């Protein structure tokens, strides 16, 4: 799973029916210190994450299916949790 930040919602009414009912949020991968570390992708939100939240994102088909309790769906990117805090050992230089 990856750490990412929610950039903002994506509204799409004309979409495949497997995506019906899901809220879509654009997220962008971040390093633990919050700096961006990758391109933005669009994820299915299941935890009511909001703009600016740091979230844990699954970006793999099998796991996404398990999360949504479906199989064989064309969905691979799902938000699994909203991060409250990240504790890391201070790196000794």
């Amino acid at each position: 799973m990856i750490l990412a930040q929610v950039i903002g919602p994506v509204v799409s009414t004309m979409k495949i029916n497997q995506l019906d009912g899901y809220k879509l949020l654009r997220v962008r991968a971040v390093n633990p210190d919050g700096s961006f570390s990758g391109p933005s992708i669009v994820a299915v939100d299941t935890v009511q994450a909001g703009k600016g939240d740091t979230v844990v994102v699954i970006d793999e088909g099998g796991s996404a299916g398990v999360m949504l309790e479906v199989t064989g769906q064309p969905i691979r990117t799902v938000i699994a949790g909203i991060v409250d805090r990240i504790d890391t050992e201070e790196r000794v230089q």
Partner: protein
Amino acid sequence: MKIGRIIGSVVCEKKIESLSGVTLLLLQPLDDNYKEKGTPVVACDTVQAGTGDLVLYEGGREAALALDNWFNPSDASVVGIIDSLEDV
């Protein structure tokens, strides 16, 4: 899912059986600022997207699963037309 823009369509009279009846679109991947990035790809359409539409698309295995007959070799499929983005 990723964001791209439809810049045209690709017509193939002769193509493999599992893609018959599937509309092929020319899709330009976009970066975080919705600027063109990378080379256009040929994507299968599932939502009647038209040229100029901002779309969501899926790659990899999920692209094939987006089509009715999921046993097909697609590695890029349009899965939604974007109405609005509230972060720009």
